């Protein structure tokens, strides 16, 4: 008996792969999803075990991959108590962001922020003389953004989101109303309305805007021309997750699954006869016909037990092959297969949003540590003439005080032998006024920020581990400087916030120290892994065409945030989802 042949073999069961599978299967096409990780969170009992781990293992709190298990057969970066790190490095600067290799992928621990890119993000070269233009524009991607917002279930009000040329068709509303704004948001909104900051000769309003999130809020009855929208509840439990109930722990997991994860899409796919999902199958090599360049098969290692051990090498066959395994894993697999790399761009242009916190005390209580981690931001610095010289950035208002744990304050107070009613009173006084803003900076594509492979660096199954080279260019760091030395002082002045920001040296765990113009900053990653297989107008400087088909292979698509030419200042999942949907449209044309 010959192995089954699928219309498409999709590598990766995260949001990009799930959305491609959804579009193809809707059109009646047969699909195989190969997921490297375990089924894991798909099982409601296992999901609850992860929540239990969050409760009972003190060391995992606050880590994006905190409760998820190490899997030697398909390792992920950032797993606590891992026997060794997953990434290896070519440079001293570390890449601070991680992802999760498990069915559902990194959407299990994402924040849910679903901002669109702004039009100038697609044309950085022609507008600001930086980086290069995308082969598509905002207008090209707009319809796919709407489709992604439908599947992810995005909550936002269109009126808030029209800025920097972001447009919506007449009559469009998001599936759900915007999330209720926190007391923190209300405080900054009241303090900053009508205020602005001067940058590069321009005045930029410090307007507080509700953030679109893929998190269940109140469905908008006007959605889809009055059809309305039904919030998607938890996988395996329809009785919970229909609304965000304010568990205040979006990362590393939403206890009730009010936040979208790819599991919600996969749960529907799993019931379709034309979709097959195989977990514990790690794609290790693309088999290429040397004459036609076609991918004739995907070789993968199917391991028996979660965590590794014995495995069989098998091959999957599809008319189309779709890599949707995350920007770093896509690049690693392409490099391992010596595929799609005639441009030499595979693995290059690795980008993330360098992330920086500032914090202080508000003059009156704002009652943080409640609600989703962020419900509003200042979006007015995401575009402007200053991008000729430094990074754009956005400011996310944090709803959880200075951190997810007030333990540091308790330690300080206990160090002063404060106890009893005085401790309780002082802690309440401090915690109720803690404000924090996270600044997220644009990073330009650089050929030296990259993923490579090294035959000496392999995992337990013999697959390549990613070798990373990474650093921050002055363009980003000048943005950091502007945020800390110009924007933050302006905000503290108008909001009468007592600045408590200190960047201790050496940087604490999870941060890395960067010095710019004599000032030290502690930066972290955003988990926004972008750019390793960018799309382009020319096969000379890009890995895929504008439809995310590899230039070098007539039946290979590479999808996900790795397609982004620039990172802009939108958290990339929504854009990755929209790009995947756009790619699926092209695939359906190929399959005709």
């Amino acid at each position, binding site marked *: 008996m010959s192995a089954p042949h699928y219309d498409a073999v999709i590598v990766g069961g995260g949001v990009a792969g799930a959305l491609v599978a959804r579009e193809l299967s809707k059109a009646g096409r047969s699909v195989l999803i190969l997921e490297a990780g375990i089924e894991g969170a798909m099982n409601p009992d296992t999901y609850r075990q992860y929540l239990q781990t*969050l409760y009972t293992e003190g060391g995992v709190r606050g880590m994006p991959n905190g409760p998820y298990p190490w899997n030697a057969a398909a390792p992920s970066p950032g797993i606590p108590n891992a026997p060794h790190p997953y990434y290896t490095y070519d440079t001293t600067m570390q890449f601070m962001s991680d992802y999760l290799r498990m069915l559902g992928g990194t959407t299990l621990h994402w924040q849910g922020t679903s901002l669109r890119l702004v039009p100038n993000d697609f044309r950085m070269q022609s507008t600001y003389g930086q980086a290069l233009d995308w082969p598509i524009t905002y207008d090209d991607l707009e319809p796919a953004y709407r489709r992604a917002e439908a599947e992810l279930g995005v909550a936002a009000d269109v009126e808030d989101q029209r800025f920097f040329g972001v447009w919506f068709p007449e009559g469009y509303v998001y599936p759900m109303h915007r999330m209720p704004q926190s007391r923190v948001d209300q405080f900054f909104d009241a303090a900053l309305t009508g205020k602005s900051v001067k940058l590069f000769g321009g005045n930029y309003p410090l307007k507080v805007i509700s953030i679109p999130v893929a998190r269940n809020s109140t469905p908008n009855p006007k959605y889809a021309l009055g059809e309305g929208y039904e919030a998607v509840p938890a996988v395996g439990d329809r009785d919970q997750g229909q609304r965000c109930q304010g568990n205040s722990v979006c990362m590393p997991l939403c206890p009730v699954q009010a936040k979208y994860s790819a599991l919600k899409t996969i749960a529907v796919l799993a019931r379709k006869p034309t979709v097959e999902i195989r977990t514990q199958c790690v794609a290790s090599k693309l088999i290429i016909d040397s004459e036609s360049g076609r991918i004739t098969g995907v070789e993968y290692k199917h391991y028996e037990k979660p965590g590794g051990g014995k495995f069989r090498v098998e091959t999957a066959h599809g008319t189309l092959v779709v890599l949707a395994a995350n920007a770093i894993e896509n690049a690693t697999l392409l490099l391992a297969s010596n595929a799609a790399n005639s441009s030499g761009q595979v693995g290059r242009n690795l980008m993330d949003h360098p992330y920086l916190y500032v914090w202080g005390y508000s003059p009156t209580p704002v009652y943080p540590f409640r609600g989703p981690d962020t419900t509003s931001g200042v979006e007015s610095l995401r575009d402007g003439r200053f991008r000729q010289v430094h990074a754009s950035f956005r400011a996310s208002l944090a709803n959880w005080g200075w951190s997810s744990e007030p333990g540091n304050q308790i330690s300080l107070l206990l160090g002063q032998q404060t106890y009893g009613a005085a401790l309780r009173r002082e802690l309440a006084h401090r915690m109720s006024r803690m404000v924090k803003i996270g600044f997220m900076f644009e990073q330009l594509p650089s050929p030296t920020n990259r993923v490579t492979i090294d035959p000496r660096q392999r995992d337990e199954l013999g697959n390549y581990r990613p070798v990373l080279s990474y650093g921050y260019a002055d363009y980003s760091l000048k943005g950091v400087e502007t945020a800390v030395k110009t924007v933050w002082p302006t905000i503290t002045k108008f909001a009468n916030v007592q600045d408590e920001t200190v960047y201790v040296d050496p940087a604490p765990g999870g941060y890395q120290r960067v010095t710019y113009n004599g000032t030290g900053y502690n930066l972290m990653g955003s988990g926004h892994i972008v750019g390793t297989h960018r799309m382009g107008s020319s096969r000379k400087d890009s890995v895929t065409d504008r439809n995310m088909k590899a230039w070098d292979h007539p039946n290979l698509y590479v999808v996900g945030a790795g397609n982004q030419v620039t990172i802009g200042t939108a958290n990339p999942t929504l854009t990755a989802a929209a790009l995947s949907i756009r790619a699926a449209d092209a695939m359906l044309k190929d399959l005709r």
Partner: protein
Amino acid sequence: MKAIAKRTLFLAFSAELTGYTETDLEGTGNVDSFLGVLEQQTGAKAMTLFYAAAAAVLQHGSAAARAAAIRIDVLPSPTVWPMCASLIMLWYQGFWPALAASWYSGVGSPKPKGWSATQKIVPSAQAYTAQLAYRAAGAHPPGANPTGHGSWSIDPVFGDYVDGSTS
């Protein structure tokens, strides 16, 4: 000392150390579990000193007199105060931060099994979900006891926060 007397003393002294009432603490369901952690992490010798200090404090009827007793019998003690500090953290954050190696050598007790300097012992999920720190601020532990859709857009409503009077 009888077990029941020990528990009573532990609970009353915990109330003194945390600023929450015995009823509040009993309501967490963690009294016996936390007493077990304290005993297991410190040993019989230190527990004798702990109970003696607790009794010395709790014999006084007025809050001012108890506070004075704590200043004399608890805060200066290199044995009892570190125990109290870890115990307060256990009530407030749901984990027991390991006592220092020097504490064990000072008391002359062996370190408990599995001890490490940076250890945070979480006795149960309930220790996490009932932690008092967030309650002090009118909030709730991340991932537990959520307050309902949109509750974050108004001031906290439960009474504990009002007692904390932060304004």
